[in-house]
């Protein structure tokens, strides 16, 4: 029994983790339940997060992984493979065996990097499983600036071109959010690159940049410390999770754009495997404990099954591609 999988994902620690988990699961994690899909899964599943630990994708992934393993009766191990705006981790999933034991947990950035980086991913390399989370983009500003509304930001930005310093992860969703907002508001801004959401949070907390775009959940600690102000969300209407936040439309900027997270497997994964994973996600998304935990962290829950997810992705892909083209950020088109 040669136990060395040729998969690129088979990292030492991971396998160590699986082994330890296999032990642990026997003790703590197994919730006895009859499974309709006896064949899958029979060993731990790796959930690949293409961003560093602590970021928004990691955050959601860890909550989902916890509930997913209760449904699947197998450990679900979160593995961070950060780099290149999420491209590295995404490619690793594409290269993995389509046996269902390597699952990608991707965010909006997965779509945007198809067009915005020189070494892109492609939607065609994956099978879609399900969507689990959906949050509107939000805008925050450094408290040092004294801006209290979106209109204040727009006025300041228009008054002096290039004076607004905006944090971005190049090519990733935060970049698109920022560029779309600035274009819509008619502002020329200075875009400052960062490697991840937590680095941007530190920079805006210290007033080194003025504006940042992310989801509300990721901005909360800094707002609690009084270092930043969240000014609004890019949704059609106010969100019940944080009803105090106005929409960008109310602030005079007509922008609806959002961030989501979903599960993906490599191309070629069998329908049985996809169904098994999708059904597990469907079940967990209805669990009160799951809903409670997501809510406590200001994260929105939105479940879409395989079919709806596919349609959703197609329309998102179209929307982001046209946004990216309009913003002149399409590097792939340029280089071809």
């Amino acid at each position: 029994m040669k136990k060395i999988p040729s998969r690129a994902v088979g990292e030492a620690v991971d396998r160590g983790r699986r082994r330890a988990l296999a032990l642990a699961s026997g003790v703590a994690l197994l919730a006895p339940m009859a499974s309709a899909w006896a064949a899958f899964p029979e060993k731990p599943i790796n959930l690949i997060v293409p961003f560093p630990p602590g970021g928004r994708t990691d955050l959601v992934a860890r909550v989902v992984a916890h509930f997913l393993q209760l449904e699947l009766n197998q450990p679900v191990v979160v593995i961070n493979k950060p780099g290149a705006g999420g491209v590295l981790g995404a490619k690793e999933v594409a290269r993995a065996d389509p046996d269902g034991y390597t699952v990608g947990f991707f965010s909006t950035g997965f779509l945007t990097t198809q067009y915005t980086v020189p070494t892109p991913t492609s939607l065609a390399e994956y099978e879609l499983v399900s969507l689990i989370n959906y949050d509107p983009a939000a805008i925050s500003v450094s408290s040092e600036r004294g801006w209290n509304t979106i209109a204040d930001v727009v006025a300041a930005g228009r008054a002096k071109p290039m004076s607004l310093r905006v944090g971005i992860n190049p090519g990733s969703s935060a970049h698109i959010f920022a560029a779309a907002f600035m274009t819509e508001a008619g502002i020329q801004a200075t875009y400052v690159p960062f490697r991840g959401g937590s680095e941007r949070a530190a920079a805006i907390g210290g007033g080194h940049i003025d504006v940042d775009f992310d989801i509300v959940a990721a901005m909360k600690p800094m707002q609690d410390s009084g270092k930043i102000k969240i000014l609004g969300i890019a949704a059609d209407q106010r969100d019940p999770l944080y009803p105090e936040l106005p929409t960008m439309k109310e602030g005079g900027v007509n922008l609806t754009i959002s961030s989501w997270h979903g599960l993906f497997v490599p191309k070629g994964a069998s329908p049985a495997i996809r169904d098994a994973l999708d059904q597990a996600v469907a079940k967990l998304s209805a669990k009160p404990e799951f809903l409670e935990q997501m809510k406590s962290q200001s994260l929105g829950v939105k479940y879409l099954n395989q079919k709806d997810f596919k349609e959703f992705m197609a329309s998102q892909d179209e929307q982001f591609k046209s946004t990216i083209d309009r913003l002149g950020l399409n590097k792939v088109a340029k280089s071809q």
Partner: protein
Amino acid sequence: MELLHSLSLGFSVALEPMNLFYCFIGVLFGTLVGVLPGLGSAGAIALLLPVTYSLSPTSAIIMLAGIWYGSMYGGSTTSILLRIPGEPASVMTCVDGFEMARKGRAGAALGIAAFGSFIAGLLGLVGLILLARPLATFALDFGPPEYFALTLLGLTLVSYLGSDTSIAKALIMAALGLLLGTIGLDPVQSAERFTFGVLSLQSGIDLVPMVMGLFGISQLLQLVCGDEAPPEGLEAPKGLRALLPNREEWRASAGAIARGSFLGFIVGLLPGAGGTISSFTAYAVEKRISKHPEQFGKGAIEGVASPESANNAATASGFIPLLTMGLPANAVMALMLGAFMLHGITPGPTLLTQKPDMFWGLIVSMFVGNIMLIILNVPLIGLFAKVARIKSIYLVPLIAVACLIGAYGVNNNPTDILVMLGFGVFGFYAERHGFSLAPMTLAFVLGPLMELSLRQSLILSDGEFMVFLDRPIAATLLGGTVVMALVPILRFVGKKRELRGMRTVMRSESGPSA
């Protein structure tokens, strides 16, 4: 009064039997992970994270923290005995620790590493308790220009390490390290750099095979080459007491431990800097102010005391940005953040008010854990010191196997062993020609941060270099860099002039007979 109340709350939480138990499991596991090559603390925490689901949040965090600071204790062992850094943060410990072991003072080196870690850990915790709130926003004061100035200062300091032979050579090694750090995808534009179409190079070179090659394998090659006389004929010290640092060694280390703790605490506060950088800078500073810098690299006990203290103090202060602002200072802290979140707790300014029992329980548990660690580690010193006494030729396979497992363990990929071997051969020849390896290692670690902060600064300032001088912290750090850079150059020029003088004398003396 309020503090006493908080501490008593902390003790009541930390001394609960379950929490004591998980604290012990954590530090034990951490020690193991630190001692054994190939198992990193980040990997160990990731491994145990899912296991903690079934524990109470406080127990879980206490255990994970135990792994983290426990691994810092254990990391020095292989550095001292085999010149293999168990953790990147103990690279500097290799330099003098291994030399001490070759001179028969392995026990003293291991002892000072353990006691230094203990003292620094306690000092760091005192700092954490007293300064957590005032220093909460310290990390936020560091923007891109400050980070760039900090990395420049760090590199300048460490390049001085190589100045025994030649500053130019140390700078070459630093520049090579920076270049190696650029291999892979550009952090800003995601463009491929120096990958030559090799897929595995896209994610860059791994630090672990690199340091294991540079230090462990190159040492092994030195041993088989027969460069070093084996430490035979050394009297075996009798009893544990004789093994441990003697009065003289303690006196030499006291200052180093204090300064290492202070520096480690400060550097550890900054996200992205952390234990590795703090141990390098502490070592460099210690050598800089030492009355006998020439002893460094040849078995100076301060060279073990300062980096080991620094990385443990940094461990304590690294919790400040996490607990007060929700900012993870490094990969391990990010995993800790994940652990908090999984248990439904968001670290940040509200943690202290909403979950005081958890906050203070964690801090007091670190006191308890440090005491457990010192009790655990001191008896081990006697055992480990025996390893240092075996003949060189038995050391060769020991180093080989430890390095092989260590490099293989990173990705389960034999390619990493070849990378390690390449760096080993490079390190072997580089050292023989007077190129020191420490600047290269630090530069490799700092490179990505340095590049990113430089590019961010220039974008922020629209290409104005004044951005580094306008801001007080950045300007101070740059000023320090200039001073650090100038002193050795001046000293070098002075020495050269002196030499020239000497040579003229010699020439005039020996001239006629030649």
